[in-house]
């Protein structure tokens, strides 16, 4: 999988980052209380959350006595399996079954997580695999959000549909679908304004976009992606819950995983809401997007801080 190679390249930039952790191995030796504490702390420090971390370590204890495991390295391996079993990767390069109608993908999330950049990366990805792609500048609110996406559209070499700043985003999406039909576009990728999930009006506005899109094209949006910043703590769970209420989420983009944050909160989101991670963001360049790999993710998560 060539995407996977990109993932590795993107992450190997730094030794201290996400990828750097993969080189580090736990010391081997006996399994004692200190070891369990250390594991729990490692999970907590990766933003898994204290309750979920305790639960995982308890499960590990059970497995260890059941399988009569003696070595730390083996124990860590088991914990890693437990984590991997908790998560299933979401769909990547998803397209709807219909060949006559465009596939609509929407990016939503709180402020500054990486929606616009991820929209551009997705546009690039779909275009690379031969699709006719169209970006929709659905953030009509933030200053220069449209200009930002325009520059990306140019770099990706794809069409962009936009309106004046301050205009109605839902109406723009309605028109964008018509434009996509007229231009025989395969994939429509919509950016939306960042908004805090606690703001009722803004969430209603998002719901309106959803209804309008669905009215113009039944079945759409085909993939709604919540963009979560990997540095986010426990708040990400509420984010997912609230956004999911305004528009059913199909998966996450876990952005900014090229830093030192490990994004463990996605485990809770998967557990509580059954929303998988589809992609990870690994940098600021257009090709810095990769499919989510549970194996690699859990390995990095469990390395010592």
């Amino acid at each position: 999988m060539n995407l996977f190679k990109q993932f590795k390249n993107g992450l190997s930039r730094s030794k201290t980052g996400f990828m750097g952790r993969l080189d580090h191995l736990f010391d081997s030796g006996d399994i004692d209380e200190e070891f369990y504490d250390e594991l729990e702390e490692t999970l907590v420090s990766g933003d898994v959350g204290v309750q979920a971390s305790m639960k995982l370590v308890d499960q590990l204890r059970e497995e260890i006595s059941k399988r009569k495991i003696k070595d730390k390295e083996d124990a860590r391996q088991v914990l890693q399996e437990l984590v991997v079993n908790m998560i299933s990767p979401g769909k990547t390069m998803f397209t709807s079954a219909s060949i006559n109608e465009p596939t609509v993908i929407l990016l939503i999330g709180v402020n500054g997580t990486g929606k616009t950049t991820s929209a551009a990366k997705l546009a690039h990805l779909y275009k690379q695999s031969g699709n006719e792609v169209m970006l929709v500048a659905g953030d009509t609110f933030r200053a220069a959000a449209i200009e930002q996406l325009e520059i990306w559209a140019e770099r990706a070499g794809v069409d962009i549909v936009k309106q004046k700043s301050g205009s109605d985003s839902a109406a723009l999406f309605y028109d964008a679908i018509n434009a996509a039909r007229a231009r025989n576009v395969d994939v429509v990728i919509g950016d939306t304004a960042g908004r805090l999930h606690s703001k009722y009006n803004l969430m209603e506005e998002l719901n309106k976009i959803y209804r309008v899109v669905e009215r113009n094209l039944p079945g759409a949006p085909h993939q709604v992606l919540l963009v979560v910043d990997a540095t986010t703590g426990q708040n990400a769970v509420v984010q997912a819950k609230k956004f999911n209420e305004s528009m059913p989420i199909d998966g996450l983009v876990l952005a900014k995983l090229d830093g030192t944050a490990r994004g463990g909160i996605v485990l809770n989101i998967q557990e509580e809401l059954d929303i998988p991670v589809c992609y990870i963001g690994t940098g600021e360049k257009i090709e810095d997007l990769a499919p989510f790999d549970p194996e690699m993710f859990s390995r990095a998560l469990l390395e010592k801080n």
Partner: protein
Amino acid sequence: MFSNLAEKLQGTLRKIKGKGKLNEKDVDGAMREIRLALLEADVNFKVVKDFIAAVKERAVGHEVMESLTPGQQVVKIVNEEMTRLMGQEHSGLETGKSRTAIMMVGLQGSGKTTTAIKLARHLRGQGRSPLLVGADTYRPGAVKQLEKMADSIGEKVYSNLEEDPVDICREALQVADRENCDVIIYDTAGRLHIDDEMMSEMAEIKKAVNPEEILLVVDAMTGQDAVNAAASFNDSVGLSGVILTKLDGDTRGGAALSVLAVTGCPVKFVGVGEKTDALEPFYPDRMASRILGMGDVLSLIEKAEASIDQDKAKEMEQKLRKQQFTLDDFKEQLGQLRSMGSLEDIMEMLPNAGSLPKELKQMSFNEDNFKRIDAIIGSMTKEERQDPSTINSSRRQRIARGSGTTVQDVNRLLNQFKQMQKMFKQMGAADKKGMSKKMKKMKNKFPF
């Protein structure tokens, strides 16, 4: 909704009520709850460890004050310790000099550009003349964003996309002289703390412009990793302060404590919205109770006291007591509530307000909504306002037409009103003294 730590602690410590001093076992039990609360609030686990150790040392053997339960006593100590850690009071900007340079730094998307604008507006309000400098030549549209926002508040921007950020910043010094600006605010690009190249660029900008303030802009929703980024930024350039953004959300904001613990820098401001005026001073005591999950009681009381006319409140109390709350009163209340934010915001600041009915939760007092409600109530007859049960479906249609709304809007309002009446009834029953007293009472419940 925030869980009420004070109550939980009450539970763990109930047994020792009446005993004179807190013993080690009591304190250990309480510390478990506190540890959990802090970790759930995203305070870094190492910071939590140190903090717990410090609090424990202070708490064991501590005399329980006459007026407090042991649970409250522990919370008081925890809160004091945390407030102390976060700085005793609000600390302002270092802008005494004739010309001041302020540099915004931070991770990607934390809110640097927006905050630079907010600061410019704030300083303009203090009679300063700011120049904004667009030093992010990397992110698409970054300078454009700064320019557009600056334009909206009538401020100047200097940038040059053809040039190196370090050169732009250096040149800005001359531009500021030429334009008679006495504050220069540098908006730098977002960068990862492990990106060596970008980190040294930041250090070079610092060398070139020698700023009085280097402010780390931190997203309040940040988790455990906040310490790593903050420590690295501090190591490379030496921060003078922190600005916490996006605090208008519902995050507990434990990152504030983490960042303070590793940098020792004060939080100078907090961002509470996307608008250019959504900047507030940082109050350590409020932040402490927010992180601890006790509700921002103090700030609520302040807000309520400032915006509710005292006489009107008294009158309202009477009505509540007699349960004569009408749609007319409702309309008047809305006008006052509007200046306090949405009902949900208000309730979120109240501990134990988990039971707000769904209909009310979704009600927000923004300008639009307020106008709509105002119009609907305005289209009712006096009789209808006194007794909404007379409003049948044909009357609803008339009211909708009259107010330019829909029957659904009217229904929603009537429903919300009913819920509110019910809620006030419950409040009234729980406390015959009415609402404003109830708020005061709440203040006493948290004696800090």
